[in-house]
Each structure stands twice: as structure tokens, then as C-alpha cells.
């Protein structure tokens, strides 16, 4: 029963996630940038600008300049999230890619780091009046959603393990359109339901910052207005 | 009182990049060595069931001892209110953390099962001084981190009080830490070379010297990098005075240590071995620690330490003290193990397990690389930290 339910749920969630995200990325890519607006001092070459974006994505450079505490916990959260997701790749690939296999033990600590950092970020949002002022309900909800995903995940790792082999079979089955049974452990079922929810909301919320950061003109433009004439394609008159 | 301005490192000289690159290479080599040791087992090192702690421990203990000493400059300003040292307080905190991390990294990578680091961090035996040390180390990093924070946060640093309180606490902690490190050896009742309470005192005195030497070396290097003198002539004189003071203290305590041991009949044998018949260990002591490490730099500082040569004298003395420090650790850690345990005092013993024999030890390349890479790690961390945050003082007017 839960196999069918979850199989359908994941097909739908994946479709919304991929479709929605693809649409947004296509929109970002297609929208013109009428003027040169890099925030200076900026790199003066394209390669330099690319490197700048990479630094923003990997080490959150601007955030580091801005606020050491947000940087610390925000960065821990994202790196941990990345590690956890890498660890999760084992459920979707067969045979498992060697680096993914090597990263397995790291993923467990990362799980703790992720949940801990999320918690601090949330406390910050609640405790500081400036943060309260700028937060709307969803800012809290998304943190709680991620916290809940992390908590159910850690629960499976440390309290009530699930049948990983069967679970992996389920997902490989989904991808091969040859359904395999899904174990009926409450923690697993909650974890998966929450993940599906995350996938559904992703393309419609602030989580768009993940693909969007690559499109931010103030960061990805090179500061070369005098060296090469900037002439974007003409505006689409509405 | 004028506010002290600080700077981060910006536009780097190729010298700086070269230095960073060099340290990265050494660290890579050290990691490679650790992997090699992990893969083949410790059989590829010079360590054995007789000499169980080798070159990595020499460097690790040296760095850990130096780490607590590096905090001194900060303590002078916050605890003893010596304002002249205040501009260097941040640097000294950063350096203390970096040196400690360098030392700990070596210790961890030398473990038989480095993969069980998490075990080491989650399972404690509270009777073990070693486990206490883990707390002391982690605590030290936390306390010094907090200390840096109260010094650097715009709002907190406006009042002197937090700096005072946390600085005092950090000062207390550093004593506990060096005492703890010294006690690792002091508590080994079975090893004649160690068992003595003066061990901890000796470590404290030594830490002052090595910590200051590291601080001064970094300041001199960074003066070059920032293209202006970070040490005023006045300060140079102060540092020189401290060097002389600390070096004399180390000399004195070392003398007391060995004299009391020589005085006790039980230990006379091991002392005779170490100080007279120990070959490489005797050489490390007299030539390394006492000669190159204390007397030579003392002579340089006393004879040529003032006037025109002051700068050079300090720049030469600091590394000599550090070389002496490594020699001291080699002599203490390895010399102390080389002398056999006495299971049957007064008897001549032999066995297939090397009972009664002076142990042979020759460090292998991997373990030396691992040890040296700890020093490089400490320097790299310092360099990167100086680049990221304003730890270095800056002359007010440009």
C-alpha cells in the first residue's frame, strides 16, 4: 500500500521539482540584463567574475565579510547539507560511486552539524528583533521542515534503523519503473513525505537562491564596461 | 588613549605566497606520510614496542607547549595591564590556537587508528590525564577563541572588562594546559627519566620561551609582508629582555631538575645515562638544548642585542630557541624511553623482548614529515587567519 502511495508521490514531486526548477532557471537565463551593474570592486575579467561567483557559492565570501555568526552557522548548514546529500546518493546509484562510498562516514557527522546549525539559525530568527521583523511564516516553516527532515533522518541512523537495502531497492525500482516494496517504518515514511514536500515547494520559494545565486548580475558581471562595450539585446517591450 | 588600529593582510608579496605554498607542500607531504603510515602500519616508522612515541610526538608536544606560551603576550596586556603589548594580543591569541591545532593534528594522525578519532572525542576515561588534556586542548581553543571575540567584537571590545575577565581566564587555562602536558610525562611513575613534579614547571618555563619565539618570528615575517615595522625599537628591547629572562629561567629549572634527580640514588643511573653516556640523547641535551638552544642565543642577545644590531640579534635568537626546543623534546621524550624499564632493580636482565637493553631509535622520513607538517599547519593557519581578519596591528598614520 505505502509502496504505491509513495511511488506515485515521488513521481509527482520529482516532476514538480524538475519542471518548476527548470522553468525558473530558464526564466532567469532568458531575462535580459539591461545594464552593467557589478558591485565593485569587482574582477575585471570574465574568468575573475566566474571565480567570484564560485567563491560566493563555496565559501560565502560576502556573508563572511558581513556577519561572522550567520556565516559560521549558515556555512556549516550548507556544507553539511551537501555532505548529507552526497551520502544519500548511495540510495540512487548502483554500483555506488567510490567517492560517495568514501564520504559515507562523514555524512553521519554532517547530519548532526546540519541539524545543529539549522537550530541555531532558527533560534536567531526567533530571538533577534531585527530577524523577527523581516521573517514571514515561511522563513520559519522552511527551517522547521529541514529540521524535521534532519531529525527523522538521524532517528533512522541512530534510533530505529530502517531496511536500507529494501529502501534502495524501492528507489532503484522507481527509476527503473519496476516497483519494489518500500519498508513501512514510520520514521522512514515521515522522512520521505517531508522530502517530497520539500521538493514540491523548492521551485516556488526562497530556496530559489540556490540556482539563482549564479545569475546575480552584481556578482557575475565582470567590471569591464570601458574595455568592451556592453550592449544587451533590446528590451522586450511589454 | 588612542584606539589601536588593526589590519588584515592584503596585496600579498610573492614572498608571502611562496611561504604559504611552501607550507601547503609540507602539509601535503605530511598527509601523504600519515596515509602511508596508516596503510602499512607503524612498522614503517622508527617507532617500536620500545620507543612507542617518536618524532611526531616530539613535534606535537613542542607545538602544544609553544601554543600555551604564545598566549603570553596577550596575557601581559590583559592580565598584567602592560599596554605596550596590547597591539599584539590578537596575534598572540591566533598563534596560540594555530600552534595547538598543529600539534593536535600530528597527534591525531599518528594514532594507530586515526579513523576512530570520534571515539577519542566521545568516550572518555576521566581518570586519564590524557583525556583531561583533550578537554584542556579543546577548552583552550574555545577560551582563546572567546578571548579573541571579546577583543575584536565592535560592541564588546568597547569596554575593557570582558577582555580582562576572559583574558584572565585564558591565562589560567594556559597554565592548566601546560601543567597537563607536563604531567603526561610527570605521571609516568614507571619511567625513571620522567617521574618528577618539576617536569610540569619545566614545561611552563619552556612554554614561555617558545611561545614568545614564535610570536616574534611571525611579527618579523609580517613586518616584511606589510612593509612596515610591526615591532617598534622600544618593543624590540622589551622582547629581548623577556627572551633573556625566560631562557635563564629554563636553564635554571633544567639544572634543578637534573641535580635533584642525580641526588636521588634511584635515578642516578638514568641520569648518568642521559647526561653522559646517552650518545645522541646526551648530544641533543648538551649540544642542542643547552648549547644551540639556550647559551648561544643568550650570548647573542646579551652581547649584540642592543643598538644597531638589536633587530638581527632577535631575529637570529628566536629560531635558535625553537631549535633548542625541539632538541629538548627529543631528549626528554625519546631519551627517556630509550633507557630500559627496570623490572628487577639491581639485576642484569635480558629477554627476547629487549628487556634491559638500551633501545635504538632512528626516525624514519614519514614520521619526520608528519611532525614537521604540524609546524607548517600552524604557520599556514596563522597566515590564512591574518589574511581573513584584522589581527595584526597597524600604524595609525600612513
Amino acid at each position, binding site marked *: 500500500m505505502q509502496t504505491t502511495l509513495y511511488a506515485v508521490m515521488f513521481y509527482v514531486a520529482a516532476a514538480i521539482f524538475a519542471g518548476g526548477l527548470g522553468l525558473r532557471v530558464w526564466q532567469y537565463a532568458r531575462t535580459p540584463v539591461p545594464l552593467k551593474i557589478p558591485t565593485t570592486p569587482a574582477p575585471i575579467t570574465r574568468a575573475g567574475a566566474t571565480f567570484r561567483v564560485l567563491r560566493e557559492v563555496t565559501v560565502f565570501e560576502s556573508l563572511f565579510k558581513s556577519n561572522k555568526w550567520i556565516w559560521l552557522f549558515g556555512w556549516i548548514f550548507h556544507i553539511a547539507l551537501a555532505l548529507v546529500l552526497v551520502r544519500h546518493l548511495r540510495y540512487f546509484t548502483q554500483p555506488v560511486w567510490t567517492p560517495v562510498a568514501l564520504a559515507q562516514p562523514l555524512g553521519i557527522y554532517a547530519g548532526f552539524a546540519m541539524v545543529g546549525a539549522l537550530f541555531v539559525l532558527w533560534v536567531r530568527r526567533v530571538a533577534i528583533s531585527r530577524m523577527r521583523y523581516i521573517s514571514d511564516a515561511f522563513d520559519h516553516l522552511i527551517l522547521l521542515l529541514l529540521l524535521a527532515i534532519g531529525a527523522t533522518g538521524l532517528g533512522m541512523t541512530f534510533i*530505529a534503523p530502517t531496511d536500507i537495502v529494501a529502501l534502495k531497492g524501492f528507489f532503484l525500482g522507481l527509476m527503473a519503473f519496476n516497483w519494489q516494496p518500500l519498508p513501512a517504518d514510520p520514521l522512514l515514511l515521515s522522512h520521505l513525505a517531508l522530502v517530497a514536500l520539500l521538493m514540491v515547494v523548492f521551485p516556488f520559494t526562497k530556496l530559489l537562491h540556490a540556482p539563482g545565486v549564479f545569475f546575480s548580475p552584481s556578482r557575475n558581471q565582470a567590471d569591464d564596461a570601458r574595455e568592451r562595450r556592453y550592449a544587451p539585446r533590446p528590451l522586450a517591450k511589454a | 588613549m588612542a584606539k589601536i588600529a588593526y589590519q588584515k593582510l592584503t596585496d600579498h608579496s610573492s614572498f608571502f605566497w611562496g611561504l604559504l605554498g611552501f607550507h601547503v607542500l609540507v602539509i601535503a607531504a605530511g598527509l601523504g606520510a600519515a596515509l602511508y603510515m596508516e596503510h602499512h602500519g607503524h612498522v614503517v616508522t622508527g*617507532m*617500536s614496542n620500545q620507543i612507542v*612515541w617518536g618524532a611526531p610526538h616530539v613535534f606535537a608536544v613542542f607545538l602544544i607547549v609553544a601554543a600555551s606560551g604564545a598566549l603570553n603576550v596577550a596575557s601581559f596586556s590583559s592580565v598584567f595591564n602592560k599596554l605596550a603589548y596590547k597591539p599584539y594580543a590578537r596575534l598572540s591569541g591566533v598563534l596560540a590556537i594555530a600552534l595547538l591545532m598543529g600539534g593536535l593534528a600530528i597527534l591525531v594522525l599518528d594514532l*594507530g587508528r586515526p579513523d576512530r578519532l570520534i571515539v577519542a572525542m566521545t568516550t572518555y576515561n576521566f581518570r586519564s590525564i590524557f583525556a583531561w588534556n*583533550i578537554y584542556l586542548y579543546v577548552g583552550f581553543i574555545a577560551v582563546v577563541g572567546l578571548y579573541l571575540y571579546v577583543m575584536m567584537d565592535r560592541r564588546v571590545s568597547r569596554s575593557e572588562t570582558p577582555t580582562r575577565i576572559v583574558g584572565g581566564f585564558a591565562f589560567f587555562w594556559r597554565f592548566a594546559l601546560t601543567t597537563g602536558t607536563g604531567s603526561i610525562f610527570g605521571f609516568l611513575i614507571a619511567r625513571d627519566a620522567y617521574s618528577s613534579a618539576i617536569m610540569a614547571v619545566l614545561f611552563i618555563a619552556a612554554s614561555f620561551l617558545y611561545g614568545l619565539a614564535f610570536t616574534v618570528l611571525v611579527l618579523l615575517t609580517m613586518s616584511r609582508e606589510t612593509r612596515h615595522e610591526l615591532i617598534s625599537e622600544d618593543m624590540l628591547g622589551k622582547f629581548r629582555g623577556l627572551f633573556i629572562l625566560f631562557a635563564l629561567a629554563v636553564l635554571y629549572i633544567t639544572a634543578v631538575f637534573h641535580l635533584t634527580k642525580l641526588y636521588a640514588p634511584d635515578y642516578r643511573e638514568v641520569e648518568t645515562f642521559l647526561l653522559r653516556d646517552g650518545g645522541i640523547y646526551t648530544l641533543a641535551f648538551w649540544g642542542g638544548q643547552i648549547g644551540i638552544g639556550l647559551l648561544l642565543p643568550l650570548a647573542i642577545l646579551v652581547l649584540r642585542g642592543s643598538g644597531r644590531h638589536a633587530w638581527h640579534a632577535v631575529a637570529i635568537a628566536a629560531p635558535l630557541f625553537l631549535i633548542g626546543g625541539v632538541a629538548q623534546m627529543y631528549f626528554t621524550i625519546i631519551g627517556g624511553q630509550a633507557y630500559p624499564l627496570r*623490572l628487577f632493580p*639491581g639485576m642484569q636482565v635480558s629477554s627476547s623482548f629487549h*628487556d634491559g637493553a638500551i633501545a635504538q631509535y632512528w626516525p624514519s622520513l614519514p614520521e619526520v614529515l608528519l611532525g614537521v607538517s604540524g609546524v607548517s599547519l600552524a604557520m599556514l593557519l596563522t597566515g590564512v587567519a591574518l589574511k581573513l581578519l584584522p589581527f595584526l596591528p597597524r600604524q595609525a598614520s600612513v
Partner: protein
Amino acid sequence: MTEDKSVDEGRRGFLISSVAVATTFLAPGVTLYALGGDAAAAETAPASAKVRWGLLIDAAKCGDGCSACIDACSRAHGWQSTGHPETDPQWVRKITATDPKTGAGFSAPVMCQHCANAPCVDVCPTGASFKRADGIVLVDRHICIGCRYCMMACPYKARSFVHEPVADQKPDAPRGKGTVESCTLCASRIDAGGVPHCVEACKTKGHGAIVFGDLNDPSSDIAKRIATYRSTRIRADLGCDAAVYYTNI
């Protein structure tokens, strides 16, 4: 510690995963049995604090050139020379001692002395070195990190560090690279009611130089002998309160 609950949790996990009412009903029975309900009761009993196992070694009986105890230990536990004398582990070795003044001497096996105040246990940062209720000092090699501090601390040089990868271990004597090991007083044999290999081998050889028994039990052979003959312990001055006694040294 959370592990203590893991059997219960196993049961709970099982309960959770069972949908059929019938299985839920039966499950406790299944697990109870499965957990070894009717396995030999003696074997599952934990080590008792009432006993303190010890050895009494008579140097006078220990034969010249004999190494039967050492060989037996090595054979049973799988430690042997790999051709690197400096790093090869030796759980037990035979020490020959001569008084330089008189020329008189003795030789006897020395292994872990299973100290009551064991320095190795005191210093071990993780608690991998521990003393069982019955006085046997062991290394829990599952949490030993290989720091070798215990080796620095042991006054008897009783411990060895495994410097090389090990293959083909005995099923009953797991050992592996990167951890510290030493004489276990053949704990698994003692738990099964037997005597240590070395004791057995010496007896088989006809020397009978090693006596094994419960030091706490005044009626035991070993306790009686210690009470009767003058015996000593190595480096008794250090106050480790070893469980291995020697006579005629």
C-alpha cells in the same frame, strides 16, 4: 549509554515494522528465544567481582630453555614473529635476570600482571584499557585508538602495539593493526571455566611452574601457596598490586 537499550529497541523496531496483529502478539516470544533464552547459563553469566584471578609463577620450577608457555600463548592467540623483532608483539616473554655481583639468577615468564591499580587503565584516554570485575585487565580493541599511552605507563612492558596488518586471525582471538594488546589471562577460556593456555602448557610439559586460581578464595590452591611460601611481585614498590606472584626470584 544508548547501546544498553538496543535489544529493546530491536524489539520495538520489530514491533513497529509488524503490521499483522498476530505477529505483534507473538513477537516478544520470538525475540526472547532468539536472544538465547536456553543457551548455557554459565557462559552468559558476567565476570564476577567476587573473584580475582591471578597467577603464581615459581621461577625455580621454570625450566632452562623451555618456552612452552610462550609458544602456547602465541599459538592460541596468533601472535608471532613477522621478522621485525623491534615491533613484533609479545604478550609474554621469558626474562633472564642475573645479579651482576653474585652471578646468581633466575628466569621466568613475564606477562601482563593484571594490576589492581593498573597505570595503563588510569592513563588510557578512551577507557579502552579497562579492568574487568574479576580483575583481568584488557584492552577493548573496539575503542582503542592506538595512542600508546598505556605502553608508556605500564611498568612491566607488558603491552605491544600491532605495527602491521594482521591476516588469518584465530576466530576466537581477533587482533588487528593499530591497536594495543597484551596478555588477556585467556579471558575467554576462563569465562568458559578453563585455565589459561600457558598454565596448561607448562603443566603438560611437566614443569607445573604456573599456578592459576582465584586470589580471593582462601581455599584455592593459589591462595594457599601464596599464604605458605614467600612470594613476591615484580616492582611491588610501585604499588600496582599485581595479580601475578612470583616465588624464588
